[in-house]
C-alpha cells in the first residue's frame, strides 16, 4: 500500500524534509510508519500525529492511500 507522510515545523527542519511517499506490503500502525520512514530517529516524546487531517493516537492503523502527518505541539493563536 501507498502512504504519504508529512512533517511540519521544527520536526520538518530536524528531519530535513517535509514529506515521504512510502510503499508497504503489510498493514501497520502510525508508530510503525514512523519507524519505517525514520529508521535512525526514535519517535520524539511529545509528537502529535494525524491521519487524513484528524488527530489519532500512535497505535492507530494506517490504510492504503492515507495521508499521515507528524508534528510538534501546536503553537498558533
Amino acid at each position, binding site marked *: 500500500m501507498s502512504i504519504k507522510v*508529512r512533517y511540519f*515545523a521544527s520536526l520538518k527542519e530536524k528531519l530535513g524534509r517535509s514529506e515521504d511517499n512510502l510503499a508497504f506490503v503489510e498493514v501497520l500502525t502510525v508508530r510503525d510508519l514512523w519507524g519505517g520512514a525514520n529508521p535512525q530517529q526514535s519517535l520524539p516524546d511529545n509528537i502529535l500525529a*494525524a491521519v487524513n487531517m*484528524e488527530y489519532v493516537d500512535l497505535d492507530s492503523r494506517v490504510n492504503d492511500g492515507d495521508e499521515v502527518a507528524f508534528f*510538534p505541539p501546536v*503553537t498558533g493563536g
Partner: protein
Amino acid sequence: MAVFIVQGDFNPWQEIQKYQNSIDSLAGKIGAACIFIGTMRDFNLGDSVKSMTLEHYPGMGEKQLEVIVVEAHQQWSILDSLVVHRVGDIVPKDAIVLVAVWSAHRGDAFDACRYIMEALKSRAPFWKKERLVSEYERWVAENTTGYNLV
C-alpha cells in the same frame, strides 16, 4: 459560522463588521458579542522579537478550526461565530487570531469564545517561529493554558 485562514495582515475590526453585516437578519436576536483578538508582541520569554513566521498544515488547519467551532455551537446557545487565523510572515502589533461569538445572553458568548480560543491553542495545527532582534531564530516550544490559577 465561518472560519478563515489568511495570508497577509488583516484588520480584525473590519472583518467583524463585514461578517456582522452579512448576518444582519440575526441582529435583533443578538444581545451579546464576545471577541478575542490575539496580536503579536515585540517580546517573548525575555527577548525582543523582530518578526515571526506562522506555519500551518493547509487543509487540517481549516478542518480542526471547524471541528472546534461546531463543538462550541453544540455546547452553548450561540447564534453565530467567526474565526480568522493569520499565517505567513508577521511583525509585532499585527493581528494573529480573531474569535468572535454572538449570542442572546452574555454567559454563552463569553464561555464559547474562550472555549474556541483554548481549543485552537491546543489543537489547531499552526506553529510559530520567532526571529529575535539578535537575528537568532527559534520555534515556540508549546502553548500554555489560558486559564489563570484560582
